């Protein structure tokens, strides 16, 4: 069977004006054969969840460089739960201090890619995660 296109939402939430990182990862994921829905800057968590549901994405990638990840991510994860969409896995990339990574993972963020991460690592991780999820959701 043909390898199905992975659909990923690359989103920026909160007051964060830096989108270079998000755009670079969006291009890299596109070049890896994925369909990337890019949200643009300064979205609310509500908007991001609405987009993820309408676009029926396989995974959500949040880019944060504002330092507000420990405030914004719980809101997003709650919003996903409220909309019965917490089966969509979430990953985070950006300026994340090493000490905060376990805190994000405790909120059920599946992986964190801090500054200095390799794009190929992210691509491989996303592929693996999406394939696992598809196996379990489509079999049921």
């Amino acid at each position, binding site marked *: 069977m043909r390898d199905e296109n992975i659909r990923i939402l690359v989103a920026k939430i909160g007051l964060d004006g830096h989108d270079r990182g998000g755009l670079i990862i969006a291009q890299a994921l596109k070049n890896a054969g994925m369909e990337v829905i890019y949200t643009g800057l300064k979205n609310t968590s509500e*908007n991001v969840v609405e987009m993820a549901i309408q676009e029926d994405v396989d995974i959500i990638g949040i880019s944060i460089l504002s330092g507000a990840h420990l405030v914004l991510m719980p809101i997003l994860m709650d919003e996903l739960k409220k909309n019965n969409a917490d089966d969509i896995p979430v990953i985070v990339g950006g300026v994340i201090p090493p000490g905060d990574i376990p805190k994000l993972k405790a909120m059920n963020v599946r992986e964190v890619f801090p500054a200095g991460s390799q794009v190929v690592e992210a691509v491989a991780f996303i592929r693996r995660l999406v394939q696992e999820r598809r196996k379990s959701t489509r079999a049921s």
Partner: protein
Amino acid sequence: MNLFEKIKAGDICSIARLISKVERRDPEVIKAIKEIYPHCGNAHLIGITGPPGVGKSCLVSELAGKFREKNRTVGILAVDPSSPFSGGALLGDRARMIELAGDKDVFIRSLASRGASGGLSAAVSDAADILDMSGKDLVLIETVGVGQGEVDIARLAHTVLLVLMPGYGDALQAMKAGIMEIADILIVNKADLSGADEAVAELSTVQGFQGMREGQDKWVAPIIKSSTLDGEGIEDIAGAVLKHFEYVKEQGFLRKKNRDRRTNQFLDIFTQQIRDEFMRLVKVDAGIQRWVDKIGDLELDPYSASEQVIELLRNAREQERDSRKRTRK
């Protein structure tokens, strides 16, 4: 509730998942479409096309907002190109539609063209049917940025908007024969830039060269200046879109447009299914395999081969007609 009832009730999650199934040609979806089909035909399908960078996405967003003010529910299908190399795509249209966020009566979906060459994606027609059935009054379909030949939208939409911007003067000359002909409304967007009036004048001249439209259609496409910075022209465009639909209905063109669209759709599905079925048969039937090999070995030319198959179909039809006559006697 089953899937059909959920979509009829406008359940966002069910609509989104069914569109995904259409995109990956999931066999389950054919069953769903069969159920949905008789309930379609209520939505006004509006195509928005034009070269890259003229502001189609922003305009779609503004127009959708205007239609919401008029209490119409709106579906949006935004198509962006897939990379011919990786198959991936960067779908950025909805980044320009943030103002519509949070409105439960607006459903936005980004589609990658996935190799389709006519400015749309293979899934867009079925996706429009799904939004139609979910109760959306208007479905806005934004094509990829087009050049001169991508006119598939004209076979799908009831009303086609061609969006241009100041500075397209020379390009317009080349467009005379191509994409200009499918436009029901001509828009000079980014009218806040200099040269908008000149662009309108050029469009009007090109329109003069075109002469009358084919057949009985006497609609003359209005030329409207717009700007999404200050909202100039948006009300006029929304008005023209609704007026065109009224015109199409009054003149009795709606039925013809719908029939043409469905005939094309049927032919696309039919040829695809014939291909699929034939490829399946070739794999399992040694006789057919040998017959196909004859074409490859230059013993049988492909035209005669195709004629032989059509002859078989014709004979089968005549036999069926004869047997029906006999049973009637």
